[in-house]
């Protein structure tokens, strides 16, 4: 059974194609989900990719959370379906209340775009299940609003329940406790600022992002036996790389 992952496309999303390719490489079938359609269809997992949904107007994610697809995403998450938000997708998940806390402007007030070493801090999430805790992955960050913040009680809960999923080796944005990614109590909703899809090919300098995407694919049904969809050529290149 090949896992099918839906990648939500908002107006202003710009990492959707990269993410579709990376997911196919990780063994999934991947398909876009238009934000204006109030359904997630038949997918096994939902991924909210990076970009600038609705122009990031007002606040990143503030308007995207009211897109018709988001009610379906919330229902899907409540039923235990895996939902992963990358960068802008993480911002959308916090705005939607599917993850606690908020993302603020970077402490430096600069856009950071650089490789980041992140340490797997928990294997309790669908994105890190089966990945060794303590493993360091090199995955790029690219954001202006990635400085995670939450109140002290939430922070204590996140730590106590193993819900801090990824932590920066060197904090690029001022995020509290070097947090790069968190999950909900059940572990099926995950948000992270680093971009795994940008670390999915040797040409990109790292394939560490595939470690996370494969964990997601494995968690929801396993990898494809044969390449499928429009990204076969890319998949084949990845396999021989």
């Amino acid at each position, binding site marked *: 059974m090949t896992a099918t992952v839906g990648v939500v496309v908002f107006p202003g999303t710009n990492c959707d194609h990269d993410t579709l390719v990376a997911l196919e490489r990780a063994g999934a079938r991947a398909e876009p989900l238009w934000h204006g359609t109030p359904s997630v269809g038949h997918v096994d997992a939902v991924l909210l990719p990076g970009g600038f949904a609705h122009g990031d107007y*007002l606040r990143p994610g503030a308007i995207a959370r009211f897109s018709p697809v988001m009610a379906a995403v919330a229902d899907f998450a409540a039923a235990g379906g895996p939902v992963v938000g990358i960068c802008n997708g993480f911002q959308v998940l916090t705005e939607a209340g599917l993850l606690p*806390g908020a993302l603020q402007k970077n402490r430096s007030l600069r856009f950071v775009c650089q490789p980041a070493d992140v340490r797997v801090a928990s294997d309790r999430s669908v994105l890190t299940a089966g990945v060794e805790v303590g493993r360091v992955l090199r995955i790029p960050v690219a954001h202006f609003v990635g400085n995670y913040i939450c109140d002290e009680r939430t922070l204590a809960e996140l730590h106590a329940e193993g819900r801090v999923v990824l932590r920066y080796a060197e904090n690029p944005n001022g995020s509290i406790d070097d947090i790069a990614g968190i999950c909900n109590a059940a572990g099926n909703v995950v948000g992270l600022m680093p971009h795994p899809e940008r670390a999915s090919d040797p040409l990109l300098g790292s394939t560490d992002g595939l470690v996370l995407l494969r964990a997601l694919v494995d968690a929801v049904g396993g990898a494809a036996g044969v390449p499928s969809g429009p990204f076969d050529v890319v998949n084949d290149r990845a396999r021989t790389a």
Partner: protein
Amino acid sequence: MPDVGRYEVLVEVRLRPGIADPQGATVERALPALGFDAVHRVRVGKAIRFEVDAADERAARSVTADLAGRLLSNPVIEDTEVLVCRPVDGATVASGAVAGAHDVHTEAGSGGRP
């Protein structure tokens, strides 16, 4: 058919106390060089202006509070304050999409984030 009016609204969205504000800090650091030695505690927020059709000012404020909590601010890090809510001079509108009559827009918090 009740008379309805149009209300001019101005909402301030600001970071909650204790939330770091690097923009405010940066502005404040620049002030002494400009000679503004007496200015302190700079915080940068947003001001959002709009108009609401409502039965009365109370209804207009109710809609505004709902909108401010659910969309204009993120309550995890921001507070809001309604700075202005007053009738637009001479404006009246037909009934229809008017707030207040049935309180349909005033379920503040029920549909918002947890």
